[in-house]
């Protein structure tokens, strides 16, 4: 195992970097979910023919989301430094790296959530309207629960992208596994460190994917399970 090849000092560094990555990714994931889900909801419900049509607002919002999505992460990170400084109090460091990560992932998650919620059958929404549900009730009680399996699947995709982006956080002094791999594995030519970083990242991504799939399955009642109630 590569760990045997690593000196105790490098092993400690690896764990330190893992902690930094975990920190950046988990905060960015939480915040981007909290922001991206409502953004996705707005993108759906304000579109023409939906429950709160606001075509101009929808167009502006969609354009803004696309703008962020089409900016390469490395450029985005630099471009929003003033904003990062306001939010994180500094433009360098692990906490500061969370800001561009969140800004980059929120629109991605919003689009994935939007796609998931757009798939919710019009008939279900009408059934809710027919019993007198308000737009907010329709969103909370119908659209989100019905789209939840797909939202969770989208969340998994966004999380994997987020882990990838976090490797670039070294650029703003964020540290983390990617940074470790570049600094030690590449710049100091320690291939065993590079290998260890890659293995750890692969393991994390695999676990995220497995957990995400399991979570999506757990909230999915669209297809019957084996356990049938006796009748």
């Amino acid at each position: 195992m590569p760990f045997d090849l690593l000196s105790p000092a490098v092993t400690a560094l690896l764990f330190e970097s893992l902690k930094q990555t975990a920190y950046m990714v988990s905060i960015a994931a939480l915040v981007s979910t909290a922001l991206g889900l409502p953004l996705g909801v707005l993108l759906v419900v304000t579109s023409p023919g939906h429950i709160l049509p606001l075509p101009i607002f929808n167009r502006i919002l969609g354009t803004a989301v696309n703008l962020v999505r089409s900016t390469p992460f490395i450029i985005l990170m630099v471009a929003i430094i003033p904003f990062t400084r306001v939010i994180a109090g500094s433009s360098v460091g692990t906490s500061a790296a969370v800001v561009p990560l969140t800004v980059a992932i929120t629109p991605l998650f919003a689009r994935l959530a939007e796609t998931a919620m757009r798939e919710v059958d019009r008939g279900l929404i009408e059934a809710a309207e027919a019993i007198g549900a308000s737009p907010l009730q329709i969103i909370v009680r119908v659209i989100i629960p019905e789209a939840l399996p797909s939202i969770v699947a989208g969340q998994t995709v966004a999380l994997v992208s987020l882990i990838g982006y976090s490797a670039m956080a070294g650029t703003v002094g964020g540290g983390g596994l990617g940074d470790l791999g570049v600094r030690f594995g590449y710049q100091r030519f320690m291939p065993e460190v590079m290998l260890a970083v890659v293995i750890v990242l692969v393991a994390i991504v695999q676990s995220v994917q497995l957990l995400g799939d399991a979570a999506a399955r757990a909230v999915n009642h669209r297809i019957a399970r084996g356990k049938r109630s006796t009748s």
Partner: protein
Amino acid sequence: MNAVPPISDFRASAIGDDDPAGAAAVRIDGLSKTFSKAAGPVLDDVSLTIRRGEIHGIIGRSGAGKSTLVRCINLLERPSAGRVFVSGREITSLRGRALRTARRDIGMIFQHFNVLSSKTVAGNVALPFKVAGLPRAEIARRIPPLLELVGLAHKADAYPSELSGGQKQRVGIARALALDPSVLLCDEATSALDPETTEQILALLRDINRQLGLTIVLITHEMQVLRDIATRVAVLDHGRLVEEGATFDVLAFPKSAVARSFLSGLVAHELPPPVAARLLPEPVADSDPVLRIVFTGDAAHDPIVADLVSHFQIVPNILHGRIDYVGDRPLGVLTLVAGDAGKRLPAVLSRLASFGLFVEVIGHAVRSAVTRRHGAAV
């Protein structure tokens, strides 16, 4: 040829004609709907009153505007012109919160059930209560009797994916009835179900109609659905109301061409095309009159064909016919060639009329042609 006498409503409706105007469950007044100017109006000045306690069928060809009409009752579709009153209150003037509150008085069930896959049966039925803001304990108390009513008490914790189509529709019905509406709208609620399940759902709707006095508006393509549960029928064609009346009357004496062709699967109003093609509008030498006889009530059991033979010595040749039951009342239509009737035709007609039958000469058939095609005379 003969004027059709009006037939009184054969099923006791909850309210007689002499009741005050306020007894209407739904009053639709000059309703029009245009989606796009180019396509023209989908509903064109439709006025219709649905009395309380009725099961009011709505039929018409695909695209006639049935769904649009029904969706205008709970304003899922907003009409371009006209007004809709439910339980005496104008719905069309309402918006926002007031409209949402008013919708609680109007239940709706759908062809594809539209139950939430993410919620259990109980969760689906709880939705209207949650929307109405009832406390949790109250909701828990109200769900079991509803599930009992629709026969799903044993499935409370099942998800829709574990249910059959008929059971999903029962969930839809329980959800629609949760807030105790005064009207239930059904848009082809049984179209996606097999005949047996359709029967069960119809029986349930009829029970609910009787037990709760609920008014039901029911769109259907299936004429046996009409025959089995509708007390009145409205016929739409190209967005216009072309006919409306008690089910038996519309089935027995449809006035519009649409209704006649629509009902021909159930009541033999129209001759099969190859036979119809041979009818002549005017008598010629060597032709016999073709009579269309509508039986209603007891006359359906009289041996009238035998009577024609023995009394007039005419030779009836049956072209087409069928007897069915609407409610418990027989309804039959028989088309026959009155072979050799000749000058006795007026006497034949008045004798048939004296049996309480409705007779009409619909054309003439050249004796040999029809006889050859349909075998020996009776």
